[in-house]
């Protein structure tokens, strides 16, 4: 069964550094999402992406964040200058169509020191 994959599984970085989190959505999917989950808290929406542009973003997704689909398979989340409070699990999700259920990847644990 096709799955959403994410790399790396764990990323450790210094405060102020840039990080890029990578996702490979399921191949025939058209809508892509990033969520984050701070330890012990609920999953929070960051951004949705369709047709090579952001379709919706939350207040968390400020100017430090950006997303890109550089080729036909990868979907990336970049944090330009990481802060301590960016430490969280970041999940990618995708769906084939707007009415479908989102399927999540295994997540990347980001630790900002």
């Amino acid at each position, binding site marked *: 069964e096709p799955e*959403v994959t994410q790399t790396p599984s764990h990323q450790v970085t210094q405060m102020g550094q840039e990080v890029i989190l990578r996702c490979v959505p399921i191949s025939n999917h058209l*809508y892509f*999402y990033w*969520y984050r989950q701070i330890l012990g*808290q*609920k*999953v*929070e*929406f960051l951004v*949705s992406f369709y047709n090579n542009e952001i*379709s*919706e973003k*939350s207040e968390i997704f400020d100017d430090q964040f950006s997303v890109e689909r550089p080729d036909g398979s990868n979907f990336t989340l970049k944090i330009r200058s990481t802060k301590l409070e960016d430490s969280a699990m970041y*999940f990618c999700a995708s*769906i084939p169509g*707007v009415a479908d*259920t*989102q*399927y*999540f*990847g*295994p*997540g990347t*644990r980001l630790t900002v020191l």
Partner: protein
Amino acid sequence: GESVGLHLPTLSVQEGDNSIINCAYSNSASDYFIWYKQESGKGPQFIIDIRSNMDKRQGQRVTVLLNKTVKHLSLQIAATQPGDSAVYFCAEKGAAGGGNKLTFGTGTQLKVEL
């Protein structure tokens, strides 16, 4: 603001018993609900969904009930097994102005005791 939340943070059940996990939502415009299971260190795993035009939906060992009158959602797991131990989240989609994003509740930790 609108929110989706869970009543019980932790639920302990004996193996073989039935489990009921509850969720309250506040946005009456929500029209689609999903239950996810999250095991430690993993991403949310889809369990079952229900649309607002339904009251009940059954899957394999799981049933979701929707009561729109009191804005309440529940997940029933029959014959709970140790592998069911996880955090369970309800999520809402399709609320007015909410686009396609999911709004998650705070989660319930299900512990299955042998």
